[in-house]
């Protein structure tokens, strides 16, 4: 006990550092993404310079094999990544939370069936499920990728929601609310959602990171948004062939991707520690 109280201020400082680092990284991407709506260095589809130019004052990150400005593409990539992340998490949360709550309330038989299905679905990587959904829609565009990722994420959210909701459902105050005549929808709104929300929201942040990486993988495989959308994954895939002459083209999108993913993960870690002080001891 004594050691825990002694290290507490130091630990707390470390955790706020994690939270801040996450906020700065994610904030940077949000700022860049917002900036792209009002200003871009070059037209993203125009051939702004020579092919595969190195970094220069005119083109800070050089140009790609068609002569398009790489920095412009990176900035648009931030916008796409954030749209995909937010969209996929929103869809995943809407489907997942609903399914999870249904399973938690359902009869034992239905609950078992749902839980077993979710277990199998979770064993498949997000990317694979998303690939199938993308294959299902005839034309690949940004929305089909977002919907696909949202559906893929919903299994993870549903499973977590089910477990969390079941834990709350056995509490005495639920019984008390039932006996005092509250309806189930009211119980969900007043007692269950507020109780499971902190843990869920931390999980959403992690899912966001997952979605961004999965979208990049989809684009990398050629199943993401079509060409004018400069997703980081697509830029990477195009740059892979010219990695020998223009290594920056393959390095820059990767760094952008990793910085956003790490930022979101740090944010999730920081949030978890702020929300749930019992975990701080670890």
């Amino acid at each position, binding site marked *: 006990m004594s050691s825990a109280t002694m290290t507490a201020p130091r630990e707390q400082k470390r955790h706020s550092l994690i939270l801040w680092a996450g906020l700065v990284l994610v904030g940077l991407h949000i700022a860049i993404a917002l900036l792209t709506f009002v200003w871009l260095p070059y037209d993203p589809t125009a051939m702004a310079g020579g092919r595969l130019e190195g970094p220069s004052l005119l083109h800070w990150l050089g140009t790609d094999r068609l002569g398009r400005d790489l920095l412009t593409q990176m900035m648009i990539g931030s916008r796409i990544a954030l749209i995909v992340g937010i969209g996929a998490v929103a869809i995943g949360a809407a489907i997942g939370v609903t399914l999870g709550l249904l399973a938690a309330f359902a009869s034992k038989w239905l609950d078992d069936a749902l839980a077993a299905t979710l277990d*199998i679905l979770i*064993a498949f990587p997000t990317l694979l499920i998303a690939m199938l959904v993308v294959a*299902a829609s005839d034309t690949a565009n940004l929305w089909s990728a977002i919907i696909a990722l949202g559906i893929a994420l919903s299994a993870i959210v549903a499973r977590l929601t089910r477990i969390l909701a079941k834990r709350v459902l056995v509490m005495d105050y639920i019984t008390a609310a039932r006996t005092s005549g509250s309806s189930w929808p009211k119980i969900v709104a007043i007692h269950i959602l507020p109780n499971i929300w902190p843990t869920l929201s931390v999980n959403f942040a992690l899912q966001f990171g997952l979605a961004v*990486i999965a979208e*990049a*993988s989809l684009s990398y495989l050629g199943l993401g948004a079509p060409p004018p959308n400069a997703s980081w994954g697509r830029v990477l895939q195009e740059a892979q062939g010219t990695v020998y002459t223009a290594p920056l083209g393959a390095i820059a999108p*990767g760094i952008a*991707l*990793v910085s956003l993913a790490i930022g979101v993960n740090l944010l999730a870690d920081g949030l978890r520690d702020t929300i749930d002080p019992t975990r701080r001891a670890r």
Partner: protein
Amino acid sequence: MLFVLLRLLPGDPANALLGVGATEQQIAAARAQVGSDQPLAVQFIGFLGNIARLDLGTSFVSRASVLGEIGNRMAVTLPLTFFGFLVALALAIPLGIIAAVRSDKWYGAAISVISQLGIAIPVFWLGILLVTLFSINLRWLPSGGFPLKGWANFGEAITGMILPSLTIGLVMGASLLRYVRAATLDVLGSDFLRTARALGASFPEALIRHGVRNGAVPVISILGIELASTFLGAVVIERVFSLPGLGSMLLLAIQQRDYPNVQGVLFVSTLLVLLIGFAADIAQRLIDPRLRGRARTLA
């Protein structure tokens, strides 16, 4: 379930077979040929019957046997998963234990931080970086590809496997490391370890005799999940290194709407995923006697 999911996909496979500009008659003929003009129930019963006979059908596109093709592809994907898994284990177990035991030292903390990085790195980017370093700058290893003759050309096949396995192993090892570290931390704070120490066992002795067994149980269930997802995640890695494995077969089949191939790959992967889960379950029971008496639970 798979069957229904796949048939729900819009886009008739017959269209994919013919391409744009086919006449109505040609489409009808192609449908009869692939059987997609029959009622779903008839298609489904045929599908079940075929699976029972271990016949996964023939590809719409190449007309080759799906099972045979899967077998060929497995010769790449299975060794790849296996080697990647070995690399991950070799990294994660010692480093995870060190990170936990020496969490107060700088290198313990450094290991944890680096493993955090490893989780955020997309696997294909790491692959490209490794290719840049080892094939382009150092020229030690091939950047990708697999000999046409397969494992008959053993030396070339092995060198082609090194970089992809390393990539998989590094990424998988990073996430595994966190679980090993957490499990070791749990063991370190346990009463039985303190008791063993009080009874005169040295610290490494206590950790090995009592710690490993206890720590292994949660790690094994994660191992099962990781192994399954590596196997399925091979899609991306095979693309980076242009390996002719199960993943590239699936990708191609999806692009061509070659349903028998998609279905076959998914069927075999689901089977493998379930088998791996089952094996992890049994391994846990062997290690932890307390689990043996319990009925199988759906965690």
